[in-house]
């Protein structure tokens, strides 16, 4: 018991250190996710940049359809992203080729334009083509590497593990005599480890908790089957080990052993969401993407699930990407919050700062819409309406994502940048 407490304290210490040191676990770089809609394209996520530090809860808020769920799903590779990179623990796990293709196309168009020119400054045909080919070669290399990383990162990861296992066991086996009675045991152990190592996947370190606990659990599987499915795919065949692990996580999420044999429909909404959480933490993930885990639940049950996630976070040292639209919950739960609007990130800062000094007009409008359990205040509350056309003048100067104050990022153009800095300085 005391050992456990010690362990927990250690974990907590590590976690605090990690947050203090600012160790980056997840880095999203220029992520774009477009969907084709007949003739047009829908820019669901457009040039999003952020970093998630180890051990923190990163909240992602915005109205429905603004691309927060799509961002989550692109990170976990449920979609193939259009362009941009996602780094997890320093390794590139997602890479889109869209941006490189665009550059190539632009270079090609420039060449065609140049060749069309007639008269005195007749272009040098060979030079133009060579210029284009140089660009194309460079971009092609980038595309190749991106495709490789996107598709093969898991296999590379597995290869690393296999190599480690081989390095550990093969010398020992070679040194041993084949008739040695221990040789066989070691060989079996080696084979088992080898098999498991081959099935290691980097992406399983990221797990997802879905919004709707009814739709995300297979009605024909028992709770045990649902929770253990990930481990079975990973290659663990020993039934006793599986059972033990399932009971362990069930206990962790506040359910009991007896629940393992039941089906999802026999549970209440809060318990179902607990099963969803158990399914994700059994894989020992480093990052959990919680996609609106409490939106579909009753108030009293919401509190249960939030408390559970909070406890697990401290106990297991998890990093959580928390996607939600209930700002009171996000404020309560997150360390840093990013606000999204129509595929773009408009503001990113710590949760206290966001609620104290909101800068972007959309954030202001979002904060003014939070309903509070106070009838007198509610009757007086005035909602700020955000109209992008009226609030910004982007006809000349286009906005970009800039750091207004340390750790406080806002999407703005030059004029607004100055304005925001003045606002912050005056406070």
């Amino acid at each position, binding site marked *: 018991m005391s050992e456990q407490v010690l362990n927990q304290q250690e974990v907590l210490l590590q976690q605090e250190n990690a947050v203090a040191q600012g160790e980056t676990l997840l880095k999203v770089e220029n992520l774009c996710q477009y969907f084709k809609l007949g003739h047009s394209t829908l820019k669901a996520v457009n040039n999003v940049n952020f970093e998630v530090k180890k051990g923190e809860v990163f909240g992602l808020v*915005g*109205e*429905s*359809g603004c691309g927060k769920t799509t961002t989550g799903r692109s990170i976990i590779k449920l979609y193939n992203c259009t362009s941009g990179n996602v780094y997890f623990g320093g390794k590139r796990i997602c890479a889109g080729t869209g941006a490189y293709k665009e550059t190539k196309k632009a270079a090609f168009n420039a060449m065609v334009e140049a060749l069309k020119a007639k008269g005195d400054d007749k272009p040098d045909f060979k030079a133009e083509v060579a210029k284009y080919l140089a660009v194309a070669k460079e971009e092609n290399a980038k595309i190749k590497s991106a495709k490789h990383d996107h598709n093969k990162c898991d296999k590379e990861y597995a290869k690393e593990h296999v190599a480690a296992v081989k390095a550990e066991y093969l010398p020992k086996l070679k040194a041993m005599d084949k008739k040695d009675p221990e040789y066989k045991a070691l060989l079996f152990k080696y084979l088992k480890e080898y098999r498991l190592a081959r099935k290691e996947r980097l992406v399983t370190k990221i797990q997802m908790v879905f919004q709707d606990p009814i739709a995300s659990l297979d009605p024909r599987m028992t709770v045990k089957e649902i929770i253990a499915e990930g481990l079975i795919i990973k290659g663990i065949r020993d039934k006793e080990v599986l059972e033990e692990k399932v009971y362990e996580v069930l206990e962790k999420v506040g359910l009991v052993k007896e629940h393992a044999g039941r089906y999802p429909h026999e549970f*209440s*909404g809060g318990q179902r969401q607990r099963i969803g959480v158990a399914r994700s933490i059994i894989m020992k993930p480093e990052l959990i993407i919680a996609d609106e885990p409490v*939106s*579909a639940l*009753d*108030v*009293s*049950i*919401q*509190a*249960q699930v*939030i*408390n559970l996630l*909070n406890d697990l976070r401290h106990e297991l040292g998890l990093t959580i990407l928390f996607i939600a*639209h*209930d*700002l*009171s*919950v996000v*404020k*309560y739960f997150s360390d840093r919050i990013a606000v999204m609007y129509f595929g773009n990130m408009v503001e990113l800062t710590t949760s206290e700062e966001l*609620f104290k000094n909101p800068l972007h007009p959309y954030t202001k*409008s*979002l904060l*003014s*819409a*939070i*309903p*509070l*359990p*106070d*009838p*007198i*205040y*509610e*009757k007086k*509350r005035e*909602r700020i309406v*955000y109209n992008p*056309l*009226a609030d910004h003048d982007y*006809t000349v100067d286009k906005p970009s994502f800039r750091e207004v104050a340390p750790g406080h990022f806002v999407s703005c153009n030059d004029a607004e940048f100055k304005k925001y800095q003045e606002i912050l300085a005056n406070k």
Partner: protein
Amino acid sequence: MEKKLEVKNLRISFRTDAGKVQAVRGIDFDLYKGETLAIVGESGSGKSVTNKAIIGISAVNAIIESGEILYDGMDLLQITEDDFHKLRGDKIAMIFQDPLSALDPINRIGMQLTEAMILKNRAARREARTVFNRTIKILCNAMNGAMGVDANSEQGKINKQKITDFNTFEKLHLKLESAYNNAHTNATLAIENIEDLLFHIEKKAVSDFRTEKATILRQSKKSVHEYVCRDAVVALADKFNKASEGCTRAKDYTPCVEPLKALLAELKAGVAKVSPNYFALAYFHTFGKEELPKLPNTEELNVFLRKYLDDNFMLAFIEDEKKGLAYSRQCSLDKKAEALDLINSMRSILCDRGLDKKAYKDVAKVLTNAVNASIDKLALVKDSTSYTFKTSINRAIDTYFSAGPSNEKEEKRFAKEKAKYDKIIARGKTPDYSVIPAKIVDVDMAHANILHVVDKIAESFKTAIENKDVYDVDKESVAMIDFLKEKAQAVAYRVTKSVAKSKALKLMEEVGIPEPKKRYRQYPFQFSGGMRQRIVIAIALAANPDILICDEPTTALDVTIQAQILELINKIKRERNLSIIFITHDLGVVANMADRIAVMYAGKIVESGTAEDIFYSPAHPYTWALLSSMPDLDTNEKLEAIPGTPPNMIYPPKGDAFAARNKYAMKIDFEMQPPMFKISDTHSAATWLLHPDAPKVEIPRAVSARIERMRVVNGIDSENNTNEGGEN
């Protein structure tokens, strides 16, 4: 305030394989005109079941065990499905929780939005026409009666002529006003569209210029009317049309700005004009001998018309109408006195329990005829006791006779189950269920119910006769004419396809759907969940109902859209004096919307009061638990979740249903159900903690701290409002 809806002692259960689930266990509430009543509680507390009963869509296995839902002189639990068809969606509308199943997958969104508007408008016009004609006829008869003449006599014919005249020029009034309405609506719509377009041109964000231009041109041309916009509008519209040529190709719309502004000014001037008094104008056109004099403006014209109408027709008509109304009321009172005598004499027959069902039914028939005859059909506020008398008494008699002294089948079942139950107890175990008693209706109570119905009507008649002097005939006659005019206007208000479309687009914009023109032609599967929910809300609001039931309408939506939709519902409530029942578990939303709140738990209302009562001085432990389990922006400590789950309603607990999850539960909570303790005139709660003998308990710290914060924010003195704990 006028009561719109009364729910009395409603009990609903569900037959299931496992047994009878008691979903609603005797709840009472009233809904007043123009107020929002919020029902709060966990899922499974019976909120939705209650409201499904109100709108008449209870599940197939639901049993309505007792109770009344009174609306507009009808008991909604008794009326037929055909009658319900006329109410549902029209008078009582509902916004459903699940938007996926509420939309038709094979029709375009636009069609689904406008369908209700067009159909409902047609039905409303038809109904208004019937009510108008019927009322006119009754009024004519009453006028004849008041003068004591036969319908065929000289005076009777004059009366009839008057009514016919009224009817004739009222019809012309409708025609004229309808044309005016049409032009006015088009002008208003054109103004909005032009303003939008100007804004977009200024911001260089014009998306679909060609359609917008076409719409503006069409609407401007349709807005030409004698009393709205002159022909100048058409010329200006043509100017705009010419100026805009070539703009689309050049992507430069600046040449359009000037003509658009001129058009806008002209339209605005047209809309701002006073509308003529069509009621009087129609009379003038129908019966006036001379030409309409040329007057400089509409105000003077109105004065002239009004005078003309009063001199020639209205004053005399009102005089007669007053006589008619007074006569009708006097008749009704006389009939009521007769009926009261009849009731008093017949009551002794009903007291005799030896008679058979036929005798009872005969008495009921006589009484029903007497009561129906005594209804004053010209009274605008309906007397629901008289109107529901027939159904109530018949039902009470049916229950009494269907009960009978013995029900063998039920008794057998009970004996068998009881024996089994006793056996288990004899073995020394405690069974986890209780035996449902034999369903033998309490015969004494059923009989008392019959007498109660009769006594109730006698009581109401007595008060009516005692208060016969309290009657303002002038006020009533004005109200009557207003009623007739209102009905006539409802006939004149015509929604055509194009009007419906522009209304639908407006509504879609209001509920926050971007690019409504494009979305209008799409199918439901092309919408996201939040969008579909907004469409469902738009459809419910388009129907312009009397009572709106919102079953967790914004639970799946994000804050901005939620705020937008709540604002929209509030705005519509103010404009149309709508009564709303709002079901939700989000207390923030409740604080925004509700005038009064009822907290439900396990099929009962455990606390009810105004919004201030519930949020500033909650009294029930369940309310405390709900409040403390919800984070707000200042919460830092661990949330206090409510432990456990709601009780199984097949075997509802004996005492307070919340006792098992309640950390303040006392011994008595497990043994007896607490009654409703009254805290103030508006606030009451069902918990033993309010009993004078109960110990004083502190409200949980999370809740009291929040209340303190709220008081500071709103600047309320904290000492004035203390009624927590054991005070009664």
